[in-house]
Structures are given as structure tokens and as C-alpha cells.
């Protein structure tokens, strides 16, 4: 059967490419480990294909080949991600402190890959076949900018959400709040779309349920995003707020995407949570963002409104979850005295010495970034090179932390 041979050849080509990539320069060993893990996965697929020859059932063979093809489709972007993780445009000095943070939050077996992506939105990849790997991608042209690395707090939050099974924990509450919102102020509109719906059959009628279940899915994803924002805020404080605004403000024109909370609402929640943490939120922070256009589809717009209302009721709970998990895991929070000391060092155009947290270093970087008078009395630094010099000071400070870590300094 040709399709079995084709399937095998496709995997052999992928494995050959992995073997070529294994000879690349790796800034840290976990990139190679990811390649080896992928090679193991593909080799297992080839083994299963080899066994397939023995079967006499073409439909079983086709199904199995289709599964292996799906695996190849799924993991090819991951291979690209690994390759881009080796690019020298990346801020490699961030890796070591980011890995420490990831291990603290997710456990000592965590393996981290930081890469630059041709995708503007920072994201996290979670792969079921490589369960200990956390992959964080940032836009390629920002991957050397350490100031946005505070957004890693948000991205790691997604892993924490999954690891702590918070989706499962909050599902009953989400469902309850979605139904409450639906049966309350949105009922008339909902029944105009779904005339057979009654309060009694919402959860029992198999024809009515699909009409509102998307609202549950939207609320669930929105709540996860808010949890991740809170995790980022808890770990990085002001630096998270600035990086969030730097990358996302004022927002992308166009329709609201229902799986995400509105960017204005996210900013509002961040402002509120900042007060709880004693984080200094910039005045008028929400005003940096623009409200997205309403969703055109009336049914989706309604379900999104239901999800928004349900999510709003649960923000406090996920905020507490994020803060509790971060506290339990002993994650850092910015130390104003240490941040100030680092700022003073940066003002001298020198990195800071000793071991410092990524949180303190990046916060100091943002304070300097926001200062109009930074280095105006330092003729060595030309205005057009300020951002580059500041980035280098932050990255050097992170490297110096790794230097002391490796020496086992207190």
C-alpha cells in the first residue's frame, strides 16, 4: 500500500532533518533535548507504521496513517519553533532566570524553550507528547527586548492554569454564572434566537444546550486569560503593566474576539488588582486601550456578553488563585529597595552586581525607560542608542545573576 510507504518516508525525512538540526549551535541544552524528544516521538510513529504492513485491513491502515500524518502536521511548527530558539536575535541571557521562574512555578522537571516567532502575539505552546516542555514565543523583532519578558509571567500562567487544573475547578462556577446571566438580563434576547428554550430545559435539552454552550467556552477561556494576567502582575508588578501596554495598546481595530476578554476590561482588572498588590498602576492606564468593535453576528455578540457577565463574577476568585499559587510557590515579587538600587546602577550606565531577580531587574529597566532625563548628563550615550544600551544593561545584569548562581553565591 503506497500510502504506508509515503507515511514512512515523510517521517524518515523529518527524522533526517532533526538529525541535521542536532548539529546546530545550542545556546542551552534544553533545545537539543526538545529535538531528541521529537525524534523519539517520530521514531515511535515509524515503528508503528512498520507494524502496519502486517495488517490486511486497508481501512485500519488508512486510519493509522492519517493519525501519523496528523502528528506530523501538529509537530512541524514545533520544529520551526525549536530552530528559531537558536537564533542570536534572542535575548539568551533571559533564559536562565526565566527557567528558574518556570521551575519554581511548575516544578523542577520543567524544561523551557524561549523562541522568536513570526507571530506578533506572545504565546505559549503546550504539547501533550512533550509534557514537561514549556515553550514561550515572542515576536521576532521584540525577542531581543528584555523589557517585554515580564509577559512571560502571563504565558507561564497558562501552564499553571493547566497544571493546577483550575479549568476543572472553576467549570461548575462558570456554568452557574453563565446560566445566571443567560436567564437574567439576556433571557429575552436568547429566546429570540432559541424560542424553544425554557429555564427548565437549558441544561437538559440536547437541542437547546448547543445554543448557549459557546458562552461557557468563551467564559472559560476569558477567565484563564485573566488568571494569566494576574499571574504576570503578581510576579512582575509594574513591569507587567508596562509590557502589556507596550505590546497591546491601544488594541487592534476590528471586531472583538470572544475567547479573549476585551482589552479594556483586562486593563480594568489589572488596575483593580494593582491596588490589592500595592503595584503603582500608571494614571489613566485603561485609557491607553480602545474598546474593540462589537461582534457583528448577533448570536455570537449575545453569547460573548453572557460570557463577559459570567467572567466578571469570577475575576476575584481567579485573582486570588493566581496570588495564592504564586505565594505558595515562593515566586518573587518586586522589592522596591532592590529595584531602586538597580536603577541607580543603570543611571551610572553600569549593570547591577550580585544576584537579583528577573523581576527586580526588569522593573528597574522600565523605570529607566520611563525617565525622560535618563543619561541626559552622560555625553557618552547618544539619544538614538539609549534603548539599546538599556537593553544591554538589563541583559548583562541577568547574566551577572547567572554568574553568581553558578558560583553558588548567596
Amino acid at each position, binding site marked *: 500500500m503506497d500510502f504506508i510507504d509515503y507515511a514512512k518516508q515523510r517521517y524518515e525525512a523529518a527524522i533526517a532533518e532533526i538529525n541535521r538540526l542536532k548539529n546546530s549551535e545550542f545556546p542551552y541544552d534544553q533545545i537539543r533535548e526538545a529535538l531528541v524528544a521529537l525524534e523519539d516521538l517520530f521514531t515511535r510513529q515509524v515503528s508503528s507504521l512498520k507494524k502496519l504492513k502486517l495488517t490486511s485491513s486497508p481501512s485500519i491502515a488508512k486510519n493509522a496513517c492519517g493519525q501519523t500524518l496528523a502528528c506530523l502536521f501538529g509537530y512541524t511548527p514545533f520544529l520551526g519553533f525549536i530552530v528559531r530558539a537558536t537564533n542570536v536575535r534572542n535575548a*539568551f541571557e533571559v533564559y536562565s532566570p526565566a527557567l528558574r521562574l518556570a521551575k519554581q512555578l511548575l516544578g523542577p522537571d520543567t524544561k523551557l524553550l524561549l523562541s522568536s516567532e513570526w507571530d506578533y502575539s506572545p504565546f505559549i505552546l503546550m504539547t501533550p507528547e512533550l509534557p514537561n516542555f514549556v515553550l514561550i514565543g515572542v515576536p521576532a523583532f521584540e525577542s531581543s527586548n528584555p523589557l517585554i519578558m515580564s509577559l512571560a509571567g502571563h504565558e507561564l500562567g497558562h501552564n499553571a492554569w493547566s497544571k493546577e487544573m483550575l479549568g476543572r475547578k472553576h467549570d461548575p462556577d462558570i456554568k452557574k454564572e453563565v446560566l445566571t446571566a443567560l436567564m437574567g438580563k439576556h433571557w429575552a434576547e436568547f429566546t429570540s434566537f432559541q424560542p424553544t428554550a425554557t429555564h427548565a430545559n437549558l441544561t437538559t435539552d440536547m437541542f437547546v444546550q448547543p445554543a448557549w454552550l459557546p458562552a461557557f467556552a468563551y467564559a472559560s477561556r476569558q477567565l484563564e486569560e485573566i488568571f494569566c494576567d494576574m499571574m504576570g502582575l503578581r510576579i512582575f508588578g509594574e513591569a507587567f503593566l508596562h509590557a502589556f501596554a507596550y505590546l497591546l495598546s491601544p488594541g487592534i481595530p476590528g471586531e472583538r474576539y470572544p475567547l479573549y476578554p476585551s482589552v479594556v476590561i483586562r486593563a480594568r482588572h489589572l488596575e483593580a488588582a494593582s491596588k490589592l498588590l500595592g503595584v503603582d498602576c500608571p494614571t489613566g492606564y485603561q485609557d491607553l486601550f480602545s474598546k474593540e468593535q462589537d461582534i457583528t453576528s448577533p448570536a455570537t455578540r449575545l453569547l460573548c456578553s453572557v460570557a463577559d457577565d459570567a467572567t466578571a463574577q469570577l475575576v476575584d476568585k481567579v485573582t486570588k488563585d493566581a496570588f495564592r499559587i504564586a505565594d505558595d510557590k515562593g515566586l518573587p515579587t518586586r522589592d522596591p529597595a532592590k529595584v531602586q538600587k538597580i536603577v541607580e546602577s543603570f543611571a551610572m550606565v*553600569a549593570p547591577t552586581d550580585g544576584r537579583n531577580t528577573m523581576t527586580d531587574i526588569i522593573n528597574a529597566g522600565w523605570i529607566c525607560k520611563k525617565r525622560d532625563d535618563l543619561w541626559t548628563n552622560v555625553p557618552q550615550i547618544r539619544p538614538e542608542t539609549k534603548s539599546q544600551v538599556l537593553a544591554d544593561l538589563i541583559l548583562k545584569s541577568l547574566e*551577572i545573576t547567572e554568574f553568581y548562581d553558578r558560583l553558588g553565591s548567596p
Partner: protein
Amino acid sequence: MIVRADKIAQQLEKPDNPSDPLIIRPLPNIEELKTSGSASIDMRLGCWFQVFRGPRVSHFDVYDNTLTPPSESQLTKHHYVPFGKPFVLHPRAFVLAVTLEWIRLPSGFAGEVVGRSSWGRHGLIIATATGVHPGFTGCLTLELTNLGEVPITIKPGTTICQLFLHTVLAGDPKNVDKSRFVGRRTPTLGAIKLDKIALKLSEEVH
């Protein structure tokens, strides 16, 4: 006048002018500096290297003003070697590297980077352009070449050169090094700029 290591230690601990201090980070071992009796401070190899892309460049001619000078990324490629990993410098190879230490020189100090004799005797030459001007701040770019017969393995963190510091006669403290090499953590190639005299003298006379 060359500054002795114990005096360097003193400047690092308690600078004469706190608003214009000598800074070296990571901070060297102050006690060792005080007792070393030397007149220099050891510098370690950093993690960034810059290797020339020979096959992509036909030649380098700063006199031909009909050509657009090649950019740094056209001429060279950066490599990051993490702590614990080797970089092998083959015989006759020439690469740019960088010190692990970030130096900030006050306006009253200048420096000079010199190789370590122990490496030199194995063929490793560290620096050719060695002057560091008052007010410089950043990691020092090193020019590494292996003049020996066998490849040499080096790793980031290794003490690879030494920095001699000189006091300079007082001048305008604001008149300090403004070169493009200031404030960088990676090696920098920079451009060669000819002055008016060199340009005039480089013209062919018919």
C-alpha cells in the same frame, strides 16, 4: 601613571568621586586585588563572539567610495556560547570576543587591555586595539587570534586578559569617550572612518 591593584580595589570599594566612579561588574575579588601586588586586573571571557563571514565578502576597501560599506551583519555573524560550553579557536582564526566584565571608567582613568602571557605562549593573542578611553562604559571587545599550531579551546568565564589602568591628567570631565563602542554587552566591529587628510592622501595623482 599605572594604578596598582590595591588602589583599584580602593576605587572600587570607595571611589574618590562617588558621582563618577570606577565600576567593574561582576565585581572582582577585592581581597585578592588588595594583596595581589600586581598592577592590573584580570578580565574574563564573555559569552558573545563575532566571527567574520569570509566567503560572503570579496574584500574590504575603505578607500573605494563607489561602494556602500558592508554592514556589520554582512561582514560578521554573532555566536552565543553559554557558560560551560567551549569555543574552539583554530590556528590563524580571527574572531571578536568580549569581556565578561562590564567596565565603567571615570573621567580620570584610562585603560589598556593586554593579553595574559600564559595564553600568549600557547599562541592565543587577545587584543590588538588596546586603548580604553576615559568615560568608557561597556564590555570590552577583544580581538582573538590563534597564532599557534594547534586549536585552542576556550570557555566563557576564563580569565583571558588583563586591564591596566592609568590615571589621566585632569581635563574637562565632560569630554569623554563617545565612540559607538560605548554601552554594549556584545563585541562590536564598528566602521573605519577616514579623516580628511587620509582621504586626500589616498587619492591617486595623475
